[in-house]
């Protein structure tokens, strides 16, 4: 059935709203994005369905995407027919029976309770709007969820629910009331910049492609989210695929494109599955295909699965991969907006960029431009992970101080630890030391620190993270992901990694540090694409702000964070050891000995420094000291 009129659309929205808001009994909404699944949401969901089967009419079970608060997964939201909403996590399937018993009587026990969501009104909102999150919870209260507005509210596999929250209304408005030029102008004046990393103005890119000669235009959604430590795009694809599709269709209308492709990395099977389903649903209702919403406009979308290569996120490499070649970048110009896929003008935008478009159309460019800073408009989704108390996906207005993100939303360091830095922008970014956490997070401020916003990865590092090890980690990554086409990147990164490995092994010299800087500058200058040009950033920023850690490795032959294996030994603090024997049981080499209830000891010669003892010790008796 194709949607042809406003009344048909309203009918669907009403149906979706009835799913979202129970009219009797309670609804349980289980967070079923990949993070939830990794924490055991599948078992929770199955148990919930089983219990609900015994309570017909009283309890309904729904699925949703990512609620963002990974730290507390598996997350379950309970909705009552009075419109109340309460979020719980972590919820174990064994506790579910008891929870449901209480929830259905209107009781919200404190155990596992995260907090209330504002109630759902009796009728769907008239336009796409931002639903509030937990207004009193430190993890949520600073967030403005725009790109991720529907994630965690709707079942991503039920288009009616997305429609109830206003999906495709922006598209309907574009097609019925605006010319492509007007849409283009709106996106341009919103100030939206690409969310994939480079921050290029989206409207300008569209305009270039629209004005480029050629009968055929392609539009690509870059979902090859390659930065390790970043999963914003996965969550959007898994949680609200229609926001991305709607953005693409609007983009196609504005630029005159007929075909769209979504290039998704193969590491995201669930995202691929849900997007495929969303395309089918959108096509069956006439939001995609021929004669969209009866206006004569035509556009289709296909999925291309990536095959595992970091460099294929680079736009010319991505095009090469789609065309069937190795994903090697080529020099630009010509830019893909002029000469891209199969030689045609091609608009390539990142997942989050596309997800922003419908709200810009719905609420207007000036509304969007009112969020953020002078040069960086709107909001940005970040994956706040690593050594931080509350890990999760957060969306905040551009310009939010790093401190607010890490210490308020993220809850600061884990118990007993001390924050050291935040690594932003993945392998192309840098490390911002804790002293500079007042920095506003926007494109310009991060660039001024030698880092980048990148796609939105924020990996928090604490006193247990060694900056030499982090630099080596990223170089190992970029070295092996270098496509090998240009020499500075291929050979230079390899040589730099060799130097860093030497330093980590306690065999480096102070001259090595200068050598690293020289090589970094050369590689940045001479590499062909963004991978090589930015790969030295983690080294340069750590050398600049954490030189003392490098010096400890090369001068004192010590690793202050206790990470670099060649420079540390494991020992047991006999005062703290209870003699519980847990460590001795787990030691893979039998290096730990002692009598029960008496302090144990580690034989240094047998110890392989795997750290298993430290992971299982409940008395913090395992100490890491300097080697030798």
């Amino acid at each position, binding site marked *: 059935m194709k949607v042809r009129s406003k009344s048909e659309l309203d009918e669907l929205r009403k149906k979706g709203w009835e799913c979202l808001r129970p009219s009797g009994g309670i609804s349980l909404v289980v967070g079923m994005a990949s*993070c939830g699944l990794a924490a055991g949401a599948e078992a929770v969901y199955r148990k919930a369905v089983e219990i609900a089967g015994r309570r017909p009419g009283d309890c309904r079970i729904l699925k949703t995407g990512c609620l963002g608060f990974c*730290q507390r997964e598996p997350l379950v939201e309970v909705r009552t027919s009075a419109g109340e909403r309460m979020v719980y996590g972590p919820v174990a399937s064994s506790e579910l029976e008891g929870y449901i018993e209480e929830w259905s009587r209107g009781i919200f026990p404190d155990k596992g309770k995260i907090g209330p969501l504002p109630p759902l009104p009796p009728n769907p909102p008239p336009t796409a709007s931002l639903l509030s999150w937990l207004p009193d919870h430190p993890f949520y209260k600073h967030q403005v969820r725009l790109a991720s507005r529907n994630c965690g509210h709707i079942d991503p596999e039920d288009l009616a629910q997305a429609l109830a929250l206003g999906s495709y209304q922006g598209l309907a408005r574009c097609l019925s009331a605006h010319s492509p030029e007007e849409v283009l102008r709106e996106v341009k004046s919103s100030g939206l910049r690409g969310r994939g990393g480079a921050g290029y103005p989206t409207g300008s890119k569209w305009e270039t492609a629209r004005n480029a000669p050629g009968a055929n235009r392609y539009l690509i959604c870059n979902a090859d989210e390659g930065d390790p430590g970043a999963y914003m795009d996965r969550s959007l694809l898994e949680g609200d695929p229609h926001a991305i599709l709607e953005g693409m269709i609007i983009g196609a209308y504005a630029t005159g494109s007929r075909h769209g492709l979504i290039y998704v990395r193969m590491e995201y099977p669930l995202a691929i599955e849900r997007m495929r389903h969303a395309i089918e649903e959108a096509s069956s209702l006439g939001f995609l295909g021929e004669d969209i919403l009866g206006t004569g406009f035509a556009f289709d979308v296909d999925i291309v699965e990536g095959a595992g290569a970091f460099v294929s996120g680079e736009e010319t490499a991505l095009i090469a991969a789609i065309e*069937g070649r190795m994903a090697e970048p080529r020099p630009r110009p010509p830019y893909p907006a002029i000469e891209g896929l199969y030689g045609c003008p091609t608009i390539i935008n990142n997942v989050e960029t596309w997800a922003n478009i419908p709200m810009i159309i719905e609420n207007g460019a000036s509304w969007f431009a009112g969020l953020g800073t002078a040069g960086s408009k709107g909001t940005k989704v970040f994956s706040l992970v*690593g050594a931080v108390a509350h890990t999760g996906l957060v969306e905040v207005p551009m310009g939010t101080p790093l401190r607010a993100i890490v210490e308020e939303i993220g809850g600061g360091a884990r118990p007993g630890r001390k924050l050291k830095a935040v690594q932003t922008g993945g392998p192309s970014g840098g490390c911002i030391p804790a002293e500079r956490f007042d920095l506003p997070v926007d494109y310009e401020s991060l660039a001024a620190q030698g880092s980048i916003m990148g796609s939105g990865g924020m990996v928090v590092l604490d006193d247990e993270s060694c900056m030499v090890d982090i630099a080596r980690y990223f170089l190992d990554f970029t070295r092996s992901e270098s496509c090998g086409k240009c020499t500075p990147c291929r050979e230079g990164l390899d040589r730099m990694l060799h130097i860093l490995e030497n330093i980590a092994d306690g065999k480096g010299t102070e001259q090595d540090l200068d050598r690293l800087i020289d090589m970094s500058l050369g590689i940045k200058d001479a590499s062909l694409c963004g991978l090589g040009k930015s790969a030295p950033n983690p080294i340069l920023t750590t050398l600049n702000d954490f030189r003392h850690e490098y010096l400890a490795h090369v001068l004192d032959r010590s690793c202050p964070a206790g990470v670099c294996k060649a420079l540390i030994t494991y020992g047991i603090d006999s005062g703290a050891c209870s003699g519980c024997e847990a460590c001795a049981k787990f030691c893979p080499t039998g290096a730990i000995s002692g009598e029960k209830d008496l302090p144990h000891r580690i034989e240094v010669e047998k110890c392989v420094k795997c750290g298993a003892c430290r*992971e299982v010790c409940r008395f913090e008796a395992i100490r890491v000291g300097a080697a030798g």
Partner: protein
Amino acid sequence: MDVEALARYWRNRPGKVTGALQALQKEAGYLEENAMNRLAEALEVPLTQLYGVATFFSAFRLEPRGRRHIQVCQGTACHVRGGARIMEKLQRDLGVAPGEVTGDGRFSLEAVRCLGCCGLAPVAVVNDSLHGRLNQARMGRLFRSIEDQDEGTI
């Protein structure tokens, strides 16, 4: 398998080479030499290009993997939270390096770049099922439960 039909499906599609290779790999679990020769011909793509792509991307294998495939995430968040130690443990226990298969063909081990479950780091995938918040002890338990399942089926 019908390599020719597969090639017909992919010949004019975007992502034709990676798509066809993935479909081919799904059949046998790896890219078998004979099938590659036939695919190159049917897809009208030089064999060098096919092997170029197959060895460029990490998705493709020219040899079969183990019956139980373990992917350990080596993303940044996992690295910071001990992902490398999980990998080292599996290497010790299985006696293989990442990318290798145990002698009895039961297990293969793979280091993956980032599974995008960073909030639950460190994570691993065992035969398509995700497991988060691991440490060496939990990985050990997970591993033993797999071995127990296998005992039951063999």
